[in-house]
């Protein structure tokens, strides 16, 4: 069927090692992660995703996400960041390779259990408009049939945790500001205390000042809670601020995976291009050139 999908098979490596073709640094990082002996919480092994029409969205993605780290998936629109995230909670299922969560293939997981074991935050549109703040936050506890008293107590804790006034509990999402809505989204994902958080551009729709505020608070929250976080963004500044490691995606493939420090100094052209696009001096220089 798919031309691009058939090509994959020719590229199969005989020794079956985890290896990123044409990218030395990614392979090096992967080896390092093997060496420090930590078992990955989420593990992509040569994962591919082909659509029925032959379009290949993800190509041979190998990636390990370790306990307690914030892995940022960075890339331009259409590079496969969100698709990668949806593979983890099986909103999409890999057509090639294997994806393991807590050492078990996502195919073997009961999909409902798998999803309830991860918090999922998307842009503010993901709140249920017909539920109050309290009911939105307690969606998963309700699905899990927690007793009412425990749910009420948990909602109180979470509102405090994300810095929201308890009086907002009875409001509806449309009565909140964008920043407040996003806090509710984070509280909702944390409700059943899942070890993994999946966040898809959670701060993308916010104004810059609110965004900076939420990013700061998110950093503090993360150092307190120690969740394993997969965070999708196209904002380099956000990635450098929040990431333990940055996985740069390009055209459905992992281009490289670097710590923020390494990212700043990397000589790789794709990374340089990203750094330049966000560098205030080069932006200023372009403007001067235009004048």
């Amino acid at each position: 069927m798919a031309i691009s999908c058939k090509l994959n098979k020719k590229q199969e490596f005989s020794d079956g090692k985890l290896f990123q073709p044409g990218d030395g640094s990614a392979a090096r990082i992967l080896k390092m992660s093997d060496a420090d002996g930590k078992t990955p919480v989420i593990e992509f092994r040569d994962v591919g995703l082909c659509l029925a029409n032959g379009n290949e969205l993800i190509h041979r993605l190998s990636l390990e996400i370790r306990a307690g780290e914030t892995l940022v998936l960075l890339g331009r629109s259409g590079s496969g960041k969100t698709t990668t995230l949806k593979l983890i909670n099986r909103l999409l299922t890999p057509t090639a390779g294997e994806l393991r969560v807590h050492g078990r293939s996502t195919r073997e997981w009961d999909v409902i259990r798998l999803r309830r074991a991860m918090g999922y935050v998307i842009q503010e549109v993901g709140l249920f408009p017909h539920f109050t703040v309290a009911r939105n936050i307690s969606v998963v506890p309700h699905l899990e049939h927690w007793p009412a008293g425990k749910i009420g107590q948990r909602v109180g804790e979470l509102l405090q945790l994300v810095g929201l006034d308890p009086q907002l509990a009875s409001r509806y999402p449309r009565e909140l500001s964008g920043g407040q809505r996003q806090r509710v989204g984070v509280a909702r994902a944390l409700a059943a205390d899942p070890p993994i958080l999946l966040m898809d551009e959670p701060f993308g729709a916010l104004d810059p000042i609110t965004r900076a505020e939420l990013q700061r608070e998110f950093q503090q929250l993360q150092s307190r809670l120690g969740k394993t976080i997969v965070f999708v963004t196209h904002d380099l500044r956000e990635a450098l601020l929040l990431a333990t490691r940055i996985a740069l995606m390009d055209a459905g493939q992992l281009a490289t995976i670097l710590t923020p420090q390494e990212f700043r100094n990397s000589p790789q052209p794709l990374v340089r291009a990203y750094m330049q696009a966000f560098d205030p001096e080069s932006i200023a220089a372009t403007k001067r050139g235009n004048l």
Partner: protein
Amino acid sequence: MNVWQFMLQNHTEMLELTLEHLWLAGISTLLASLIGIPLGILISRLPALSRPVLGTASVIQTIPSLALFGFLLPAPWIGQRADRLAILALTLYALLPLIRNTYTGIRGVDRAIVEAGRGMGMTDRELLWQVELPLALEVIIAGVRVAAVLSVGLATIAAAIGAGGLGEYIFRGLAMVNNSVILAGAIPAAALALLADGALGWLQKRLAPR
């Protein structure tokens, strides 16, 4: 004799016919809702069925009402009594707005919200009851509203097969070439339609998602 005099003189009979009319339209709207709404939910789950189901309901809608009564006449239990026949025909006519609005309402729920629910581990049933149906409710009630008004209007034709209702006056008036008698059927029928529309419109607003 003008309309008002006629109505005043025959008010007992008119009340009876109005109640009969309401019964015919009401029971068929109820039956159509009980069939159409689950069918709308079903085709929102199985998109392959949506075309044949909506297509069939549309075709039924195009059959002239008198012809439909004729078609249904030979049906075993149904054909024995005129009111059964009328209720079946009215139910069939009311199906289209109900199926279509339920289907459109569910499909029209913001994909991002549905995906958020799915991503948080809602089963298909939980997603339907907790997210999709509440958010589609306003559109579904709008479908019930259209079906109810349609049934009140069409129920006048039921008198042609002797099922009663305010159509009696309309057909009688036509036969007598007496406008007062026609209007004695038409005015209350129109009032009923407006009343049903108003009541369901109010319900629709009350149930609107916040």
